[in-house]
Every structure is written in structure tokens, then in C-alpha cells.
């Protein structure tokens, strides 16, 4: 079976770990436990014509305590930039991270706006978010809590990774 590496990148606390947990184990935890370093999870995904084993690299949030590390993107067939719709700053940072990632890889990228179950608290208009979306091959408004759009997101990234 083919294996594909994908990376989840974003500011801290946006829900990277929660998305993986929801997708792999179907579990959600309200308590925030920040990730240190890297954790890799595996899950097989059935696409229309083949099965793909995704190796999902959940990376430590990128902020003033942990910088962007280009080396983790090596060999990644796709990556996702995760943002949090309750925190404007996470989109700004997500775009910065995307720009840094673009310098080291041409892999397709997906933009995730997470925590869809909570109220939108950023002052970006739909138009502005749409403008940012143009730079990505996919876009999903997910909730790691309810599970909404989580499957769709990982199927999409699996497909992008194996095309």
C-alpha cells in the first residue's frame, strides 16, 4: 500500500492535535495539552481507486517558544495550515507559516479554519478569507469537537498527497 506523509502546521492551540485525535480515534478532549516536538499517527484512507496510508505529522505549534522548522516538511506530499476562527491572530500567523513553508516545498496545501462549533470572533470578512484561500488547493471549516468536515479534510489532503 502506498504511504504518504502529510504535516499539520499552525500557531499553538488552534487544534492540530485535536483534529488528528478526532480523525484517528474519534475522540475529543476539552482540556488543552500543548504538543512538544512531533507525533506521527497513521491511518488508512480509502480513496475511490486505491487505499493510502497517511502518516500524519502533528507538529508543535509555531510561536515565540517554538520556531518554524523546515526540516519536518521533508518528504511531505501535502500539508495543512490550521487556524482558529476564535482568534484572528492565528490566521495572520498561519499565512506567515504558509509563506515560510512555500520556500522549502511545492507540495499542495490545504487551509483549515477550525473550531467551527464556536462563534467566529475574527474580523476578517468572508472576502478576505476567500482571498487567502486562493493560495491553497483546499479549504475546510472544521470542528474537531463535533467532527464536522474532519473526514472531508483528511480525504481531500490524502487525495492531494497521492495525485
Amino acid at each position: 500500500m502506498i504511504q504518504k506523509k502529510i504535516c499539520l502546521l499552525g500557531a499553538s492551540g488552534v487544534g492540530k492535535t485535536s483534529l488528528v485525535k478526532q480523525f484517528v480515534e474519534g475522540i475529543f478532549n476539552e482540556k488543552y495539552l500543548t504538543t512538544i516536538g512531533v507525533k506521527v499517527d497513521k491511518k488508512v484512507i480509502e480513496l475511490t481507486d486505491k487505499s493510502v496510508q497517511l502518516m500524519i505529522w502533528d507538529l508543535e505549534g509555531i510561536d515565540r517558544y517554538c520556531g518554524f522548522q523546515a526540516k519536518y516538511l521533508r518528504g511531505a506530499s501535502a500539508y495543512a495550515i490550521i487556524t482558529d476562527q476564535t482568534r484572528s491572530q492565528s490566521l495572520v500567523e498561519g499565512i506567515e507559516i504558509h509563506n515560510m513553508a512555500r520556500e522549502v516545498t511545492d507540495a499542495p496545501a490545504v487551509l483549515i479554519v477550525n473550531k467551527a462549533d464556536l462563534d467566529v470572533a475574527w474580523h476578517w470578512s468572508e472576502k478576505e478569507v476567500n482571498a487567502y484561500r486562493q493560495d491553497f488547493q483546499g479549504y475546510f471549516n472544521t470542528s474537531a469537537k463535533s467532527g464536522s468536515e474532519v473526514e472531508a479534510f483528511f480525504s481531500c489532503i490524502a487525495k492531494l498527497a497521492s495525485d
Partner: protein
Amino acid sequence: MEQSLIQALGIINCSILKRHGNNKFEVMHSNESWFYQLTPEAKDQTIFSFTDSSSYLQDFFIDAENFWKIGIDGQIQSGIWTEQVPDHLLRLEAIAAVSKGESYLVINNLQEQYDKQQNTVQAARELLLSNDKVLAQHEYIHERLEHLLMRNHDLESLIEPINKAIESANFAVMICDPQLKPIKQNPDSYDLFEMNRSSQEEQPIETLLSLLDKQFPEFNRVFTVSGQWNGELFWHKPPSSSKWLQVAIYPIKNEHRAPKYWVFIVSDITRVKYLVQRNEKLNQFDGVTELPNRQYFWKSLEQAIEKACPFFVLFLDVKHFKRVNELHGHLGGDQLLVDIGQRLSPLLHENDLIARIGGNEFGVLLHNLKSHTRCEQLAGRMIEAVEQPFYNENQQKIMVGLNVGVANYPLDACNAEELMKLADLAMFNAKRETKSTIKLYSKALKEASDKRLALEEALRTAIDEEQFELYLQPILDLKTGKIIKAEALIRWKKSEEIIIGPDVFIPIAEQTGLIVPIGKWVITRATQMLSKLQNYDQDLKISVNLSPRQIADRRLFNFILVAIQDTHIPAKNLELELTEGVLIDNFNQVYRLLNAVRDLGISVSIDDFGTGYSSLAYLQKLPIDHLKIDRSFVKDLDNSDSDKAIVLAVIAMAHSLKISVIAEGVETQSQKNFLRDHKCDSVQGFLFSRPVPFDEFCTQLRNQSK
């Protein structure tokens, strides 16, 4: 043996493998409790190969193999990772090592370090998130209110929508008139300060203002210059209530840039502070630079006063910091602050203090200096240190400057509040210079500052009463010698006798934002003139200067559009003039604006070309019609070979990009000849005419056609 020794000492929880060729390892030492969970394939084998069960390790082997092949003594590390084994998680780090020609793989179990690191970072990150949220909420409500209050309706009709916006905000919102009298305070404002809404006693806004006065003596400046402000306050109500508050103050300005309302937004951040206190270090130190924070600085300042030995208080403000954040992101900005802290600290004496006391502000206490001169010298060294280029992760160069304000204990003041205020005033004066500057507080400085405020006031009146006049300076085509264009230059006619030049009031207008209404007046006036000039020459253009603040004003484009429509002039007769610096500072905004005006047919020229950051890359990306070679190059054209070379290079470059060239400041015949011989397109300068009133300009046009 070694093995048992490692175990006996229990030095580190690790497993050591010796490498015998491509993916062949021998276990030298292992911690059985976890090693075989990670690599079941090694069990009962003398030599074994890793299967690909750990993706992270497989990825590390790419680097490790390269390293082992080179075979030079040393080691490389994988970085920490988490591995899921049947019933728990392992926190590991791998090391590829070469020692005396032998290759090893060491796997460390870092559970303890992991827990420790997670503990510290956890608190810091939770804090970061709550803080971000509070600030974002403030910003959001501010934008909504600004949107409402900017409308020119009477307050009566706005009350309803305002109430809706702030009634259930979950934090205090207070709206005041310019005299800081409350117009509207939402229910949360009363709840926050545990006040009764119906009581006639103190109002929330009064409590807030008196807290500000005590804890941020320098904040009064916010009101005098109509700025924004953000900060933290501590509120205590005996016997047992106390809260930490995050405060944001915003002016809502009228079309003349004078505050029409003040909006105060206050959140209770006691919980956030509690998180900070869980982490003692964060409580006293700034999380970014690891320098002491504002609270610590304040405490040290008070202690220093108690000792009653003379000392200096310095406020340092990092110039162009906003630009760094925009260009290099917040992480880049944070890193710069760290680097600045590291450059400044070694300049200080052991018992001096440097702290981060605001976004891009540092505070310094100097105890060991005998005189103001010494203090100035040291401040000069600080500026020098900060003006050396910084480099970010991608080796991009970052240049910033430093404004320094100085106050002395006991000469200038004897209490902490006053000292902070005076140092801030001095720094604020330094800030007005374009270059890094040191200002020592003095009476004269205070007076100059007051005088400036008076000038600002006068300028506001000037705008209300339209005490301006627009002069025109002709620009001639070098081939035909005919006037094809004029640059619009503003004069302030303060009274019949007093005319103030733009070099005096434009910088103040720019700093205060008054440039926006002034700029609008210029555009209106220029389009009116163009309409009259249609009788002389239908192609004659007027070029109008735009400043950075004007360009940042989103309504500019619309204003220009309406001005053109109102006067029925062809859009192509209007030209906009920008300086190079503006291009760099606001590239995206400039890009959008210029493309939009270009679509209307308006042309664009770049002023002062050659003095700044002349970058071909910018010119190519933007729709530019003309470059103006700065007068400083034209001035010495007769004597300076290097200026000649620059002028020639600019002309050649511009023409290759199909941009025409205007030389300004042409004063002599020989300058003109040189420019004509080298295909410069047009000229402007005293040799032809000084800036003249409209009627005189018309006379010149008439004379020329005779």
C-alpha cells in the same frame, strides 16, 4: 563493564546501539522497559534491522546515514518526538554519533525533560491565547463602534445601534465626548467596578481615569496627541476586591482628525494574570525578551528613589518596528526585540537595569553616571548598537533605529510617576526626528513641545478656515521648451503677513494625521484649477503630492474620483506624486491604489528619486509614468562626476522601463544643457519659474503662447 556501569549509575535513561553497516545494529545497552516496545524486531537478536514501524525514526535515518557515511567524530540529534507503543506514549530523542571511527545510534528517553518543558510552555501558551483573545475582542468592538460613530449622524439616532453593539459585550465599553464626559457606559462597566447603575456616586469612567493617572502617568499624552493606547491596570477596592484589567483607548476622529469621541474598552484579565503567576518567571519578566517587564521596572524605579542617589531614567523606542512586523511577521519582530535586548544589555553596568516596558519600548535605569554628557554618550552607544544591521533566520537584513528620552533624578523630578512622564515626553520629542535621536528632558523641551501643540491647534483652525493657498510651479518639456505640467505646492497663509512653508507644517500634519484633510483640500483645489486651465491648454497637467498617511486612508480613491467628476476634468490631467519611501512602507496598499487610479487614466510620478531605497523591483511592479530626479543630484551636476553618473543611470534605467524623467531643482543653464543633451524629458526649477499663485501661472501660459 561499561553497560552495567551506565545502568548502575542510572545516568540517563537511554539505549545504545552500535552500527555495523546499512540498517544493521547491535544492542550495546538497552533499557528493557521501553526499548523492546519501540523495536520488537531487536528482541533475541545479536544483530538486527529496523522495520519501518517508527516513521519519525525512518525520517531521521536519512540524515543519520549521511552523517555515518562521512564518518567524522561528532553527533547529530533528531529533535524530540512522541511514539505510541501498545499502552502508553514514549518521549524520545535519537542521536547519531561517530566516535573513533565507530558509528552509534543512541535513543534517549526524555520523559522527565518533556514533562518539565511542557509544564513551562503550557502556562505560557495558555497565557498567549487568552491575551490574544482579549485583544482581538477589543479590536473587534472598536471597529464596529468606529464604523457607527464615524457616520455623520447625530448621536441621538446612533444610540440604538450602539447599545446593540455593546449591551452584552461581556466587557466594559465606555464612550466619552472630547472632554472625557461619559456619553454611554454599558452595564458591564458598572459590574466591572462593582458599582450600582442607579447610584449618583462615582462613575466607572472616573474610576478608570484615576487609575490611569496613577499607574500610567505618561498616558496623558494619548489625549493630547489623540493617539491609541493599550495597557494593563490593577484595580483594588477595599477590603477584598481586586482585579487586573486590560484597557484599550481609541479616539474616533472627525473629518478634521480631531477626536469626536473616545472609546474605552476594559476586560477583566485576572484569570490571565493568575496563569502568569503560576509561572513566577513570567510575572517579573517579559516572555519575549526575557528581560524584566514593566512591573519590575516600576518597582526598581521606586526603590532607586528611596535610596536617594542621583540616577537617569531612559525611555527607548525602537524606530520602524511596525514596518519590521509587517515585512518579517510577528515572529520576526519578536526575534528583533530579543536581539536588541542582547545588544543593549552589555553596554550597561552591573547594577543598571534594562526592561521591556511596552510593545517596542525599553526602559533603562542608569546609576553610575556622573553627568548628562556621560549619559548622552552612553545613549549614543546604544543607538550605534541598534543601528547595526540585524539579520533574520533567512539572512534578510533588518535595519531599525532608536529614540531615546532621558530624565534625571533628582534634577528633573523626584517621584516615579513624574520621572516616567518626563522621560516619555523627551522620547516622544526624539521620535519626531527621522533619524535616531537622544533628547534630554528640559524646560526648553517642554516649552518647545507646548509650542508644537499650539501649532497643531493653529493648523486645525487653518483647516477649518481654509487658510491655505495652492501655488503652481511650471514643468517644461525639454524638447519644446513649453509648459506641459505644474506641480501643486501648498502655502499656509496664517495671516496677511505670515506665510508658512510646507517644510514647517507638513511634517506636523503628517504626524498628527491632519495631512488627510489638508490633502483633500489640495486635491479639490487642484481639480478646480484644472477645470479653469482647460481654456488654455486641454492637455496641461497638475501633479499633486501624496503622503504616506493619505495613502493609508482607504477613502482616498473615492475622494479623487468624486473630485474629478464634480469638476468635469479629464482624469488624465491629474497626476499623483509619491516619494520612494512610501512605496516601500505600504507596498500592497500603494499597489492597489496606483492600479485603481491608473485605470481612471490618472498618471503617477515618483518624487525624490535616488534618495531612498531605489529599487528596480518596485518600479517594475507598479504602474509608474514619471520619475523625478531629486534636486540634490541636480544641484552639483556641474562639479560632481558621481552625480552625473547617477543622473545618467536613472535616465537610462527609466527609459528602459518606458518611464519618463523629470529633473527638479534646475537652476542654471549648464544644468539644463546637460539634462537636454542626455535625453532627460522635462525640467522644473528656479531657472524657469518659482512656484507662483494661480493667476501668475496663467499669465505665464498666456505669454508663452504669444
